[in-house]
């Protein structure tokens, strides 16, 4: 009785023998290793490309109520930019036609110039308005279009103001033009159809990265154990004096290493390929990512304690992951959710990590602001890993 009480919960020796065996097996299957390492990167690149398509030469539908020279100058500026293409056939007579064409998906963007555009530009008494209508179905494209349009409008506005500076007293103008600074400027009114709250690729890609790493780490970890159960090798392992903690730690270490490596690689892809720079501290993000990977390992191990086959493990992972995508703040903001969903949201590691990665990458915040999330993520990692080792009984059925 005292014999078992004195036994340590884990030993270096046990971890080492399992770890060595696992490495040997991985080395026997280099394709699997290459697959595990490259899969998250491929997934990130594909989903990133899907939301961030090339914004060039977008066919633009136009309704020009003004029809005078100034309006054509503006449309030429649009047409001459690399973003917009305006052909003769793109002109329609009513703003309704513009809306309809975009709703039907025939055009992604439309320009409506009101009848008083030229007179406002010439008089300089108040800013001349133009309307840009974009299809918001794809948020990042819509955002890109709006950005491009405002760039062009700002340039035209500047050119128009400069020309007024050269000729400060237009012949037919009133005398108080000097007192209205907005004279001759153009203001852009944008209208987004379908999806007024734009979320950009900039906002989405760090989140996608988090989700891919979460899912892949959970899957590969649970596979590592469930495969042994499926093949019956776990049964043979269980009759040896190996400790449960040694078995799990030894088995999971190689996948943890792969997870960390992948995390770094996907961050590099995000920075270099999608040109999303990390405005905050890179090392803090790396540290938080390591903790996040640990929570994923814990979840993967927990899943492996209940599943008899790899198919079951996939089903359970997906079944858990899909709802957590919806309530972790990845798609919908957390604030308006009911309290009982919020409780679940704040017990998910993904929720905290999303706040951390978005904070660091987009807002440039660091540990000073994000320490509560970091601490809670650490607690979750400890709880999940501890629970999985406790749950894993040394019994096969």
């Amino acid at each position, binding site marked *: 009785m005292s014999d078992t009480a004195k036994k340590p919960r884990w030993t270096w020796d046990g971890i080492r023998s399992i770890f060595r*065996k696992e490495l040997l097996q991985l080395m026997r299957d280099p394709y699997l290793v290459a697959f595990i390492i490259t899969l998250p990167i491929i997934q990130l690149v594909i989903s990133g490309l899907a939301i961030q398509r090339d914004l060039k030469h977008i066919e633009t539908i136009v309704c020009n109520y003004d029809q005078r020279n100034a309006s054509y100058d503006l449309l030429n500026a649009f047409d001459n930019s690399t973003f917009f293409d305006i052909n003769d056939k793109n002109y329609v007579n009513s703003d309704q036609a513009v809306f309809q064409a975009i709703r039907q998906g025939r055009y992604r963007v439309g320009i409506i110039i009101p009848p008083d555009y030229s007179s406002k530009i010439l008089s300089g008494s108040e800013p001349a308005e133009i309307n840009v209508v974009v299809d918001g179905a794809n948020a990042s494209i819509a955002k890109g279009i709006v950005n491009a349009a405002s760039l062009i409008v700002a340039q035209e506005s500047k050119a128009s103001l400069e020309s007024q500076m050269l000729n400060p007293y237009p012949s037919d103008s009133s005398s108080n033009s000097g007192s209205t600074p907005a004279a001759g400027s153009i203001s852009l009114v944008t209208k987004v159809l379908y999806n007024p709250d734009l979320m950009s690729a900039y906002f989405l890609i760090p989140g996608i990265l988090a989700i891919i790493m979460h899912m892949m780490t959970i899957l590969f970890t649970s596979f590592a154990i469930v495969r042994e159960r499926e093949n019956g090798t776990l049964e043979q392992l269980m009759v040896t004096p190996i400790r449960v903690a040694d078995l799990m730690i030894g088995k999971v270490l190689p996948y943890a290493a792969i997870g960390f490596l992948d995390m770094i690689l996907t961050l590099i892809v995000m920075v270099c390929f999608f040109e999303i720079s990390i405005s905050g501290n890179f090392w803090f993000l790396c540290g938080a990512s390591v903790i996040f990977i640990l929570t994923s390992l814990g979840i993967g191990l927990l899943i492996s304690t209940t599943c008899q086959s790899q198919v079951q493990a996939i089903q359970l992972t997906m079944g858990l992951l899909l709802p957590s995508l919806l309530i972790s703040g990845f798609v919908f903001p957390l604030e308006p959710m009911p309290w009982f969903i919020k409780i679940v949201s704040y017990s998910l590691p993904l929720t905290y990590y999303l706040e951390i990665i978005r904070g660091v990458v987009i807002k440039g915040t660091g540990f000073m602001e994000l320490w509560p999330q970091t601490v809670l993520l650490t607690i979750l990692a400890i709880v999940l890993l501890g629970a999985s080792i406790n749950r894993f009984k040394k019994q096969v059925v």
Partner: protein
Amino acid sequence: MTSQEWAIQTEHLYRRFNDKTAVTDLNLSIARGEIFGFLGPNGSGKSTTIKMLCGLLPPTSGTATVSGVNVVADPEAVRSKIGYMPQKFSLYEDLTVQENLDFYSHLYGVTGKAGHLRKQEVIELVGISRYQRYLAKHLSGGWKQRLALCCALVHEPEIIFLDEPTASMDPVARRELWDLLFSLASAGVTLFVTTHYMDEAERCSSVGYIYNSRLIVSGGPDELKQIRQIVGHNNQRFEVICRPLVKTFNIVKSLDYVEDVTIFGQALHVVTQQGIQAEQLQKDLSASGVSVISQRPIEPSLEDVFVTLTQINIEEERRIAEEQSLSV
């Protein structure tokens, strides 16, 4: 005997899976150094029993003591004392023979110079040295079994559980394995072996027969052939060598005093009712035009014992079921 002298002892061991009972009220006592043969039809609960004794599967109720350790209460404590060779090959197919053996000896703490010597010893013992560099998946069935035996032996266990070790072995390999088991037993190792082969059962020092989750009988093979139900039930058993075999089989079967007849190679084993003389059978066969080459009374085989006991068991169950349906 005191409990220390028993290698394995179970009391009222039960195991249920949902609504199916795989092991019912198992009481076993196996002495140290014995080769215990565990027989029974498919699905009768042999593997389930072994898994419970190895501490892999918790029993629904009852106790099991293996090598002085209560495996129900403390399955961890028995690990280093036992070896287990599962029915299905359960080593790593993508590792070589040597790597599998290294891994398991490391887990059992068989390391260093002594460990190296022990591994060499086991490899010699099982005779697997020429396959050391093979991946386990490239071994044939019989050699896989021998590799599994290596890994179950490497830590010099006191008790080894072998679940159908000879299932995929050729006759020579089977003979070699049994020679190995005998030498282990003579060194004091207790062996718990399941098998479907009667000739293997005859070589065990004691056997148990489990039918439909119940242990029907256990004891030494010779002992079992003397038990009352066997001897008292069918006290006449003849081996009849004759031509033509199949035709005679049908003739013998139709005789009203014959209870059972089976073909054994070139001979028939005939079980007759009490008091039937050898002359009577010979006379009836000659009358039917069969040329009897030889005829002699024989002892029941272990198979006869198991078949008879199973039949008695089925009849008893039917009788009990009928009584119950009548009383309801």
